[in-house]
């Protein structure tokens, strides 16, 4: 049992933290690609910008450094790392009584550094070190939450936010690279490596498929791998797990929870075959996955947060 508003805040804290981490990684990969001066640097920047839904990706990709800086530090842009972290922290502050001091301290620290007036200079002096530290601190934050918070309902709402956001972010990234919206497929070796880096997947991929960079394997790994924590399949399995646990109580009251939807989504990925996915068009498959993620999000909100009172008043 917990307050509906609190569950909502914990859920959004998870989503914003995950988004911030993903954006840091995209920016980092973009900047690394520029350093190498490879021909695919522009293509990589375009992938990253398109994956976060920037409509001007073609124009901005010509100047990856400015694009990355805006993506990280621009407070005017509600989709930047700084804004995401400010919102994550604002949500955490609203439920300060629900999260442990250890967890709070980590997030507060990251927020303080990001909102420091000196942040822009630190970024200019060493953008990759800055991004590396931010990502590392976000890992510390998640680790502190895992190690110190009770793994009860509140923690599950937080995890639900993290995994739902992750599934959608990775799904969007794959859609940009492998979707068939008239874009040229990504085949260049360094672009493929960068793509794996954006999903923090390079090293785990190498252990499974060796240094053989094949678009098909990469799609299979990021979409359908059972054990890799950033594959869409892994995320949906966690989403189902957390929702099943959270829904127990509402189901006891004779209501349906969103776990049925989550189960269907998990099954879709668990029993998918990469050949069939490609034959039927990756876009269609990814589109269906992203749609179902959005449905899960809506139903979580309707079931646990914004339910109508008539259903729940004592008879």
């Amino acid at each position, binding site marked *: *049992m*917990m*307050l*509906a*508003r*609190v*569950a909502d805040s914990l859920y959004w804290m998870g989503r914003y933290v995950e988004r911030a981490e993903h954006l840091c990684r995209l920016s980092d990969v973009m900047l690394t690609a520029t350093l190498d001066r490879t021909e695919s640097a522009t293509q990589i920047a375009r992938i990253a910008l398109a994956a976060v839904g920037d409509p001007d990706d073609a124009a901005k990709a010509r100047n990856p450094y400015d694009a990355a800086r805006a993506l990280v530090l621009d407070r005017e842009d509600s989709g930047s790392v700084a804004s995401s972290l400010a919102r994550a922290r*604002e949500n955490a*502050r*609203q*439920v*300060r*009584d*629900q999260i442990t*001091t250890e967890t*709070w*301290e980590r997030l*507060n*620290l990251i927020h*303080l550094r990001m909102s420091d007036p000196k942040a822009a200079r630190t970024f200019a002096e060493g953008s990759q070190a800055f991004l590396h530290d931010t990502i590392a601190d976000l890992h510390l934050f998640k680790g502190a939450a895992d190690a110190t918070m009770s793994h009860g*309902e509140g923690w599950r*709402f937080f995890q639900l936010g993290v995994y739902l956001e992750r599934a959608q972010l990775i799904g969007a990234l794959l859609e940009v690279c492998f979707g068939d919206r008239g874009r040229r497929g990504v085949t260049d070796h360094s672009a493929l490596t960068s793509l794996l880096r954006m999903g923090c997947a390079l090293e785990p991929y190498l252990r499974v498929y060796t240094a053989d960079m094949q678009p098909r394997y990469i799609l299979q790994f990021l979409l359908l791998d059972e054990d890799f924590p950033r594959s869409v399949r892994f995320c949906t399995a966690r989403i189902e797990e957390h929702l099943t646990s*959270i829904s127990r*109580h*509402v189901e006891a*009251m004779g209501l349906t929870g969103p776990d049925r939807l989550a189960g269907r989504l998990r099954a879709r990925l668990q029993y998918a075959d990469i050949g069939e996915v490609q034959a039927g068009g990756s876009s269609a498959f990814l589109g269906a996955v992203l749609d179902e993620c959005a449905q899960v999000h809506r139903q979580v909100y309707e079931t*646990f*947060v914004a*339910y109508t*009172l008539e259903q*729940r*008043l*004592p008879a």
Partner: protein
Amino acid sequence: MTLGAARAGPAKRASGAAAPPLPYDEMRDAKSRVRPHYAALAARIETLSADELAERQKTLERFFLLQGITFTVYGAESSTERIIPTDLLPRIIPADEWKTIEAGLTQRLRALNMFLADIYSGQQILMDGVVPRDLVLRAPSYRREMQNLYVPHQAYANVCGSDLIRQPDGKFAVLEDNLRVPSGVSYMLANREASKRVFPGTFRGAGVRAIDRYPDLLLSTLKSMAADWRPNPQVVVLTPGVYNSAYFEHAYLARLMGVPLVEGRDIVVHDNLVYMRTTTGLRRIDVIYRRVDDDFIDPLTFRRDSGLGSAGLFNAYRAGNVVICNAPGTGVADDKAVYAYVPEIVRYYLGEDAILPNIETFLCREPAQLSHVLANLDKLVVKAVGASGGYGMLVGPHSTRAQREAFAAALQADPDNYVAQPTIQLSTAPCLVDHAIESRHVDLRPFILSGEKIVVTPGALTRVALRKGSLVVNSSQGGGSKDTWVLTDRKELSP
């Protein structure tokens, strides 16, 4: 760092005026010798260089920043969140002095609760003419809605934070009673956490009384207010929300008590029963520790434009289905004009003299007292009856002619709204200011809980006026705070 014998000099005064008595120095006696209960701390400070002290001050501030122990200062443009200025040198109170404070506070709160119970039922004290009837019934903080409402244990003010000051003769006196929604207790607890880190050795040796039971004592006080037939009462803390200046404290107390922190929008009142919206539906609430002012509790009963409370809450309270702590309407007992009568109130209900005296107070509603106040505006502190937090106040000796003229006009226009008190030289305690140890004026805010019984926590928030010579300690007016060590009675420890 060597501790200079310098005392806070008396404020500059016009020639010819009588010299006001020097403020009481918490650390040194009249001959500038360190008082025995400060000896260990003074010795420890002597061994530290200015840099080491500054380093410790930094550690302390970082602790507060990391924890998010911040305060919102109204009217400040730069930032909405700031750390409350905190001083690392603790203020120390010996056991025998604390005994008097404890007895005095207990007596005072018992009498004030009896006063509230009387005012909101038979009003015997008004019949007997001890307190003027119109003074009470016309006070904005008097709530007619509370009339004849049953309050368990007659405990109207469950949490009280009284402001004490030490006069030049060394005696403590009550400057103000805070019976509405007193805040600051989280700073008392956080200051203690911090000072344990800064002076661990001295702390261990000094025999400081523990204050960490405050949250569970608060919880049992709140539970004692619940109806007998609710076996496992659900307690919640009601906060105005994350933008309130004391939000940190609300979250802190909820976390340490292990109860939900709710906002008005989480509460649903149905058939005079109060529920909160949880993920699994509606859950009954029995006791609300509200940190929302009376006016905002229930838009149906009090202010209609309030979005902070919950519609129907007060009716549920009247029906006995929920308990609101502190009770609405307690403000009538800490009204700045009623304050002047508290010694009479104590004598009336308990037949005892007040252990802690009041500060002499002039009621401007009395014509004779008004003319005295007008003639002495440069020496007095004038306060608006309804205001708090150091707003709406004139400190005579530190005022300009224009300010005094503005106040004189206001006094004549609405004398009922003002009281005046002599400017008291608050006692001083050593503080670290810009790498040097200097004396600053301090007050003392202990916290008293009252439910089934009255409990005084052996500690307090010591508020500091960080500006040199200033007598205003409110955090909204450039005040800070420091830890307060109440020492164990050595005689009671040894067999």
